[in-house]
C-alpha cells in the first residue's frame, strides 16, 4: 500500500506536467493550423498606377506571399454594357491596376500596419485597403485565447513541479539512511541510487503511457463523437507519434533531475 502510495504521489504530478506539455504541443499545432487558415482566408487590396510584379511588391515588404491581378476587363464587364467601345477603352486606359495580396505568414496588427505604410510609401501605389478591422478583431480574440491557455499551462506545470519536489523530499527522507550507509561502505553513486533510478524510470514510463493513451483515446474516440467542429476537423492534430518521444524524454529528464537532487541531498555531510 505504501509502495503504491509512494508511486502515485510521484506519478500524479508528473502526469500533470506531461499533460501541460502535451496540451502545449497540441495547442501549438492547433494555433499554427488556425493561423494558416486565417492567413489563407485573408487578403488585402492594392491599387497601383503602373503594373507591378510579385517581386516588386515583395521587395517593398517581404511579408507579401502572393499577388493576383484583377483584370480591368472583369471590372468593366458589368458596367460597360451598352457603352461605346471607344469610351470603354478610354475608361480601361484610365483605370489603375488592382491587386489582391495574400500574406506569406500570419501577421499581428502592428506588422499589418507596417506593411500598409511600406506599400503606401511606394510611388507606384495609390491606395491600400487592408480590411484591418475584421483582421484586428480576429487577431485579438485569437491572441487572448492563446495567452489564457499558456498562463493555465504554466500555472499547472509550476504547481505540479512543487508537488514533484515535495515528493522528492519524501523520497530523500525514505532513502537517506540507506544511501548514507552505502556511502560509508564505499558504494559508488550509481549503486547507491540504482533503486531510485529504477523506480523513477518506471514512474516516467507509466506517466508517459497514461498521457499517450489518454490523447489516443481523445483522437480516435472522443473527437469523433464530440460534435465539436474544432475537435472533429482537427483530430489529426490531437496526438502525433513524435509527441510520445517528446513526453518520454521530458519525463525521464524530470525524474533524473529529481533523483540526482535526492541523491546529492542525502550525501553524508561533515557535522
Amino acid at each position, binding site marked *: 500500500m505504501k509502495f503504491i502510495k509512494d508511486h502515485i504521489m510521484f506519478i500524479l504530478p508528473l502526469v500533470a506536467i506531461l499533460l501541460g506539455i502535451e496540451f502545449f504541443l497540441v495547442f501549438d499545432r492547433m494555433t499554427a493550423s488556425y493561423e494558416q487558415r486565417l492567413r489563407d482566408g485573408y487578403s488585402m487590396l492594392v491599387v497601383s498606377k503602373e503594373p507591378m510584379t510579385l517581386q516588386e511588391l515583395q521587395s517593398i515588404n517581404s511579408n507579401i506571399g502572393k499577388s493576383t491581378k484583377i483584370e480591368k476587363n472583369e471590372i468593366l464587364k458589368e458596367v460597360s454594357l451598352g457603352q461605346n467601345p471607344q469610351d470603354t477603352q478610354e475608361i480601361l486606359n484610365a483605370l489603375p491596376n488592382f491587386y489582391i495580396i495574400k500574406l506569406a505568414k500570419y501577421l499581428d496588427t502592428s506588422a499589418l500596419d507596417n506593411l500598409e505604410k511600406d506599400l503606401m510609401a511606394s510611388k507606384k501605389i495609390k491606395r491600400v485597403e487592408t480590411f484591418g478591422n475584421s483582421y484586428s478583431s480576429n487577431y485579438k480574440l485569437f491572441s487572448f485565447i492563446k495567452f489564457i491557455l499558456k498562463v493555465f499551462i504554466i500555472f499547472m506545470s509550476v504547481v505540479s513541479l512543487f508537488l514533484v519536489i515535495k515528493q522528492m523530499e519524501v523520497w530523500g527522507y525514505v532513502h537517506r539512511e*540507506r544511501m548514507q550507509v552505502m556511502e*560509508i561502505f564505499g558504494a*559508488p553513486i550509481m549503486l547507491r541510487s540504482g533503486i531510485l533510478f529504477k523506480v523513477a524510470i518506471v514512474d516516467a514510463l507509466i506517466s508517459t503511457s497514461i498521457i499517450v493513451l489518454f490523447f489516443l483515446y481523445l483522437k480516435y474516440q472522443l473527437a469523433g463523437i464530440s460534435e465539436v467542429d474544432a475537435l472533429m476537423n482537427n483530430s489529426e492534430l490531437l496526438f502525433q507519434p513524435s509527441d510520445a518521444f517528446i513526453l518520454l524524454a521530458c519525463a525521464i529528464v524530470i525524474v533524473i533531475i529529481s533523483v540526482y537532487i535526492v541523491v546529492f541531498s542525502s550525501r553524508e555531510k561533515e557535522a
Partner: protein
Amino acid sequence: MANVVIQASDLTLAYNNGKNEIIKNANFSIKKGEFVFITGPSGSGKSTLLKSFYGHIKPTHGSLMVGGLDLAKISNSKLQELRTHMGIVFQDYKLVNEWTVAKNVVLPLMIAGYSIDMQHTQAQRLLRHVKLSEYANMYPYELSGGEQQRVGIARALAKNPMLILADEPTGNLDEYSSNVIWDLMENACQQLETTVVVVTHRIPTVFSLQYRHFIIENKGVYEVH
C-alpha cells in the same frame, strides 16, 4: 612503515571551517593487526577522530595516512575504494531497516560486485560466525540491540577488511551482549590480523592492560602506558 595502517602527523581536526578545533597537532601511528582503544571524556573528540579515519572529516592541518593514502588530499573515488577495505561499526548499528539481516551483512560484498550466489554463501558463513544463522531472513527492527550489533559486526567482517573502526560499539548494550561484541572483535583481530580501532568511553576491565590505549585530552591524543 609498510606495517603502519594509520599514521597521524601534526593532525588537526576542526569544524566550522577550521574555527572550532577538536584535535590539535596529534602524532601517533597504529600498526597492522593491532587492537587499539581510544578513550576520553564526552565531547573530547573521540568520534571525530574515528570519523577522520574513514574520511568523513578531513584534516584541516597536518597529514593523516590510512592504508598508505593521505586523507587530506584524497579524491572521492580513492576514498570510496579505501572504504571498501574498512569495516565500520556504529553505536546505533546503522543497519538498513528495509533489508533483511542477510542482505545487510553482505552490503560490502554487494558493493564489491560479488555474485548473488557468493553473497548468499558468505551471508550464511558470517551469520554462523556471529551466531545469528536463524535470523537471516528477518529484518533488523525485529532483533534486539545486541543482535543488531552482531549483524553490524558481521557486516564489518564481510570482506576481511584491513581495518575495523568501531564507535562505542557496546554503548547501547547490556553486559552480556557487550562481552559477545568484544569477543567477536578480538577474534577478528587475532585470527584475521585485522587492525581494530575502538572508540569507547570505558574500556572493559579484562582488556585494560592488554592492548594499546590512546586518550584524548585538551585536544591532544596521548598514548597511555
